[in-house]
């Protein structure tokens, strides 16, 4: 009886875990994210619902900390631990806002995952295609997947038609800092203003 009880508990645990875990294969990982996102981006869902659910997905599947370091470039070496903590907190809010805002504009997107290319032990690029509609052309989307921990891949960049969104953000951040004589804290103010918008 005790054995059966343990088996049931084990099965429940496994099933629950599997429903939240993503594949460790980068291509499959992206496919699962796309499938999950498609279900959220149906017309009948409210924007608030979409934003909440997309944020949950992003927190689980995007290496937000890694993107935050990348977008700050070498300026990250100038920050104290406390400033870094503040920056990471601001960046997460900024990232979730822009990430969800970009996606909620799409309604029931049709994306085909095409192939995966291993760049190094740390990176795999997964190629996909957002199918065209009557009004929009098809769009090539590449996902830079961080695979240092092969059991838990994470997204680090979206490359749309060959244009890296992370790089565009990095250059915006640099521009703000440079326009303020290298003061990184001015970027914090800009981020706060953007988040509050």
């Amino acid at each position, binding site marked *: 009886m005790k054995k059966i009880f343990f088996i049931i508990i084990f099965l429940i645990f496994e099933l629950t875990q599997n429903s939240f875990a993503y594949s460790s294969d980068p291509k499959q990982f992206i496919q699962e994210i796309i499938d999950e996102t498609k279900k959220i981006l149906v017309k009948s869902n409210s924007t608030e619902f979409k934003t909440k659910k997309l944020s949950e997905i992003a927190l689980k599947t995007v*290496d937000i*900390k*890694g993107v935050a*370091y*990348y977008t700050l*470039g070498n300026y990250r070496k100038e920050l104290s631990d406390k400033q870094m903590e503040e920056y990471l907190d601001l960046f997460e809010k900024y990232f979730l806002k*822009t990430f969800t*805002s*970009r996606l909620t*504009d799409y309604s029931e997107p049709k994306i085909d995952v095409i192939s995966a290319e291993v*760049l*190094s032990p*740390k*990176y795999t*690029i997964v190629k996909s295609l957002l199918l065209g509609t*009557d*009004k*929009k*052309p098809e769009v*090539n989307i*590449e996902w*830079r997947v*961080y695979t*240092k*921990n092969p059991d*838990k891949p*994470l997204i*680090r*960049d979206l*490359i749309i*038609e*060959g*244009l*890296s969104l992370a*790089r*565009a953000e*990095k*250059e*915006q*951040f640099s*521009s*703000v800092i440079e326009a303020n004589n290298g003061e990184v804290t001015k970027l914090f103010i*800009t*981020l706060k203003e*953007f988040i509050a918008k």
Partner: protein
Amino acid sequence: MMRKIIYISIFVLLLKPNLVMAGSTGSEELKNSTSQNSTNECFEGFSRAMFKLNHGLDTAIFEPVAKGYRALPSPIRKGTGNIVDNLRSLLTFSNNILQGDFRNAGNTAGRFLINSTVGIVGIWDPASALGLKEKGKEDFGQTMGAWGTGSGCYFVLPILGPTTVRDSVGLVGNFFLDPVYHVTHNSEIHNGLVGNSNYSEHNYFFYRGTSSVDFRAKNIESWASLEKNSIDLYVSLKSLYLQNRSQQIANSTSAVETQNDSNWEEIDTN
């Protein structure tokens, strides 16, 4: 004459810092470079003012026109897009040749011939169905990039938008290399060279304008998203423009081939 020499000297000076020296293979060199990182502003204050002007014009004129165009029935839009793309392929062909890219020149010429005849002046695209699917676009700025010319500094032109010194020289070069311009250019008629009395330069600018409207209409949502999600729209556009030009010069569709990955490699979070 003196004025011409001054203009040429200024362009050469502006281009100089980024010139890729002889001995490199041009596009390969750029393929592994991070040219967008090293592209400085020529005159940022002026460029930001021009950007503001263009943004205002876009909101007041170009976007509403693009939305109106988008409201047209799909076959009309598709046919119009195909016609301008077909005409645009003539400029691509000239640049394919200048780049020594004869494989793509053959593809471009084949597409133009099939689409102009079977596809009735390019309204339809039977060439794709026949296997000539590649629709590369080349211009003289790209050709100079492929020859090894650096981008020079970045600036924004009124109405025409973001450019670099190389690409602005390319814009002028495009007039000389575009057969459509020569056919519609009046002064050539007087010289008895090419030209066609049925057309005028207005036809050329109408064709270019239509091409721009078609492009803007296809990117209404993308631009709106960029506007909404940028902390500095001017820099966003600059970054995307320069990334895009690097891709086009390298004839690549992957950012990984044209950008330096070392910044990513040094970041470890787990």
